[in-house]
């Protein structure tokens, strides 16, 4: 297994996806080696079972092989495309299996608020990451917490509400307002 890739691998991942669209099996294997550790981490956070996450990882790569022709590099990032396939698959499975345990999401990293230093994240050298982190940091803490829980844990509104012990209505409104504020910030 090759080393897992970081955000700087975007051009390589896009090239490999284009090669998969031409049915290049070597490129498919290379793509698996480069992308599977990060996608498995993402699936594990949502499904919280190694066996289910590895099954989902299989489904994801079977889909990637079948749908690589639909990826167009001009319309978005290759990593964004892969991660979306993985997250949607996990959300699907989670709903079907009702596998949610009651373990807390304590392992999810905190996004620093406005008053906290940002160097560590900016140091990754990734503008998109820094922009998202800064804009998340500018949200009200409850809005930020709900959006992060929903994304990394693959939680529904009610899942988030149960997790943080707040009413469903408040959670819905925090997420909606948080997303609107995030959009304004990212587009400014």
């Amino acid at each position, binding site marked *: 297994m090759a080393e897992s890739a970081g*955000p700087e691998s975007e051009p390589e991942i896009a090239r490999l996806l284009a090669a998969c669209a031409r049915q290049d099996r070597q490129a498919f294997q290379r793509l698996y080696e480069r992308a599977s550790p990060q996608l*498995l981490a993402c699936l594990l956070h949502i499904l919280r079972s190694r066996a289910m996450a590895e099954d989902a990882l299989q489904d994801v790569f079977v889909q990637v*092989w079948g749908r690589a022709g639909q990826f167009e590099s001009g319309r978005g990032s290759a990593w964004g495309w892969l991660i979306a396939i993985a997250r949607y698959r996990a959300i699907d499975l989670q709903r079907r299996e009702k596998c949610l345990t009651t373990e807390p999401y304590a392992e999810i990293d905190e996004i620093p608020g406005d008053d906290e230093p940002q160097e560590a994240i900016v140091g990754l050298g990734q503008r998109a*990451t820094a922009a998202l982190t800064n804009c998340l940091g500018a949200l009200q803490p409850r809005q930020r917490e709900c959006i992060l829980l*929903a994304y990394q844990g693959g939680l529904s509104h009610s899942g988030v509400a149960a997790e943080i012990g707040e009413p469903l209505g408040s959670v819905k409104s925090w997420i909606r307002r948080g997303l609107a504020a995030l959009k304004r910030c990212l587009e400014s």
Partner: protein
Amino acid sequence: MKRDEPEMLDLLAAEYALGTLRGAARRSFAQRRERDPFVDRRVRAWEDRFASLIWRLVPVAPSPAIWTAIERRVGSAPRARWRALPAAIAAAAVLGLGWLLWQQLQPGAPQATAVVASEAGAALWRVALAADGDYIEVDTVGDVRFPDERSRELWALPANTAPVSLGLMPASGRVRLVLDDDQRAALALAANVAVSDEPKGGSPTGAPTGPVLYVAALART
């Protein structure tokens, strides 16, 4: 329709990408995305915005068996070409079978290797994990000597858990050690392998009992 105001649509796209849009609303939005390139662009934009959050997660290496299963599921021949040449399907099937047989005879490059060397740096054994993860081959490549009444046992050293025995090292020549699921899992999580000194036949306890003589890094290929 009010729902179609771009602002509203963009927030629906955001909730879809975030995953909080659920049930019938999620399914109908997914269909709409398939049909409407404008909606698809909005969703893609949100997918990309959120994607950078995954760099906060620590990557996890999948078990070796997962790739084998994926290969099986996507089939071993390019489907598009088969569709394009319906008249040649029979011939292609024969070729495909030949290719499969050839593949079994040619296991391909190993997925990981390690060279176990003496303290002085002389190579003793070369350890290679087969491409499909089903077995390990150990080649004696140097001057290996140990007493007849002792054995040399190979261990996977997975991070944070106990060593897992992989089998006994040969005094000469080559051996193939077939792996079970536990051994495969341990190897997937291991950065190193080790060789210990054990009573003849290997450790009676399932854990190394004698001193660890050599440690070698597993180089993933």
